[in-house]
């Protein structure tokens, strides 16, 4: 019996022996990523378990990306950044993208990609559930807690139960108004928020192959909203072109065997996809945009690891150019690189940044911002009964701040179209 892509990567990191779903194996870790919310707790456990003078297992393999609570005056959040700084200094860690410096990047999942830490065939763990984003690069990546991260810091290893793999195939060509966000919301709606629990979500088909790395990251990013352990897409020329521009480190491209065993397969016709939203308060509460057409909104939010990449803003700008938003519209680039690109990228001679400013949107600095609520002074955080359309990943009660607010998850096209009308609007009205 052959192995799936995920099984092959885990096998290669568990001494090379063949693995099957359900096996518990210890794997060698290539990258451990942590940030300001979970880093301090991880460091605390590491010191308790390995001693106050302990050294991390491999300085080259630890990446620290503060991104959650960066632009806040909350004293505990400021203190947490100091804990990261002290640890980086003490350990001499080379990959630290510190807040308030020229080295600051922003949201960790995109920063990992942009700084060359995502490499095909590798095993990456991160103290953030959206670490599954990196699977877009043909690697195994998943989210863990502080205890597991502290274990890795000291040993470079972690036990993993080998997941079964579900295969989602999209053939044909997506209509121009469809984005990866529509696809992942459709699939989560189909399988439910626990439909992929303990499983891998592998994406394939010629329609997926045409997606940019950014769109592939959106697909893999929300695997956790289906309960998935990881998501994965086989590396191809698009992947390698992206990776080679950003790292010199070697990597291995693995592919699923022809006789690999999948526990689930579903084939979709890409051309038949429709713009969708997830209604409050669950990412699987799917509806077609046209079914929610007219729902009154208080704000539109375009940002986060899911919906704050340059491709997301190009899509939004296409609709907002030369127009004025009707509701509070928040634009939050995921990373500094995306923010820089908002100045460089132009539509009809106008930069995306100018398009957004002229449309009357509020622009925030790169970070996780209101995607997960955060401290009271977080940019774009809901404070009352706001109804929001958002390109982020979760719409649980209180996720964006206030327990009374309601969040509709949508693509950047749909969020931009809705910003222009103040009601949930199908992007086809403006495209």
């Amino acid at each position, binding site marked *: 019996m052959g192995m799936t892509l995920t099984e092959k990567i885990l096998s290669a990191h568990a001494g090379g022996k063949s693995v099957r779903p359900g096996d*518990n194996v*210890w794997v060698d870790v290539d990258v451990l990523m942590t940030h300001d*919310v*979970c880093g*301090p*707790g991880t*460091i*605390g*456990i590491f010191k*308790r*378990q*390995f*001693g106050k003078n302990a050294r991390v297992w491999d300085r080259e393999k630890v990446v620290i990306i503060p991104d*959650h*609570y960066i632009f806040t005056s*909350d004293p*505990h*959040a400021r*203190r*947490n950044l100091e804990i990261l700084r002290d640890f980086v200094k003490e350990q001499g860690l080379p990959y630290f993208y510190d807040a308030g410096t020229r080295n600051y990047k922003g949201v960790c999942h995109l920063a990992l990609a942009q700084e060359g830490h995502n490499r095909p065939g590798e095993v990456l763990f*991160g*103290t*953030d*559930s959206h*670490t599954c984003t990196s699977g877009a690069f043909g690697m195994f990546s*998943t*989210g*863990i*807690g*502080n*205890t*597991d991260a502290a*274990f890795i810091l*000291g*040993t470079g*290893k972690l*036990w993993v*139960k080998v997941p079964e793999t579900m295969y989602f195939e999209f053939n044909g060509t997506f209509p121009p108004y469809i984005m990866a966000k529509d696809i992942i919301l459709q699939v989560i709606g189909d399988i439910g*928020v*626990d439909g992929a*629990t*303990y499983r891998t979500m592998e994406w394939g088909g010629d329609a997926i192959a045409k997606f940019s790395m950014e769109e592939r990251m959106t697909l893999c990013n929300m695997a*956790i909203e289906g*309960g998935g*352990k990881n998501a994965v897409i086989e590396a191809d020329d698009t992947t390698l072109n992206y990776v080679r521009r950003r790292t010199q480190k070697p990597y291995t491209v693995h592919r699923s065997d022809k006789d690999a065993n999948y526990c689930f397969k579903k084939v979709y016709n890409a051309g038949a996809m429709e713009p969708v939203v997830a209604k409050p308060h*669950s990412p699987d509460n799917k509806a077609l945009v046209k079914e929610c057409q007219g729902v009154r909104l208080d704000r539109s939010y375009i940002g986060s690891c899911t919906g704050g990449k340059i491709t997301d803003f190009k899509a939004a700008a296409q609709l907002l150019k030369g127009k004025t938003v009707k509701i509070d519209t928040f634009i939050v680039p995921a990373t500094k690189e995306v923010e820089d690109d908002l100045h460089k990228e132009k539509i009809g001679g106008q930069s995306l940044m100018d398009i957004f400013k002229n449309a009357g949107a509020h622009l925030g600095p790169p970070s996780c911002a209101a995607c*997960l*609520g*955060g*401290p*009271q002074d*977080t940019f774009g955080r809901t404070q009352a009964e706001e109804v929001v359309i958002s390109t982020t990943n*979760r719409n*649980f*009660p*209180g*996720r964006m*701040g206030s*327990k009374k607010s309601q969040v509709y998850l949508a693509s950047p096209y749909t969020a931009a179209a809705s910003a222009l009308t103040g009601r949930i609007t199908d992007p086809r009205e403006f495209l």
Partner: protein
Amino acid sequence: MQKVIEGKAYVLGNNIDTDQIIPAERLVYSLSDPEEKKNYGRYALSGVPAPAAGLPDGNHAFVKEGDRRSEYAIIVGGKNFGCGSSREHAPACLQIAGIQAVIAESYARIFYRNSVDGGFFIPLETTTPLIDEIRTGDRLSVDIGAGTVTNVSAKRQYPLKPLGDVLEILEAGTIFEYAKKAGMLPKDS
């Protein structure tokens, strides 16, 4: 690992996510400082909307205003308990509030793993949904060895699923003790 756990039940619904268990704005407190981390007890389950807080009636505070410990020792949940974020603050806050076991129909993967590897409490699963069988405030007795949970108040007993692979880690205490037993870590580290 404690083999018998007794205490009052706090009942929640399906898909209780980590933002409901511990809202993101509270994640700023230290989990390493013994005094500061008590804040997590204070805010445990503070994100659950009032009508869903303590079923079937709702409007039961899990932790009373001003307290840092809960009067409840066991949480009964539905499907996909702990979905969402990888924040270990979620299982930690329940332990800090005094929870010794969670009994759910199913768990989200990272929350379950964090509960086990960090040794916060015993995450148990049932073969049938219990959220309509048990009321918030009912006295429960969980017998890990026998694999049962008894609703002492209603005099009814239900089977628990075997703990399987994770039993060894739960018995060891945390992933660190387990790794020492398994020879992955030196015993004196």
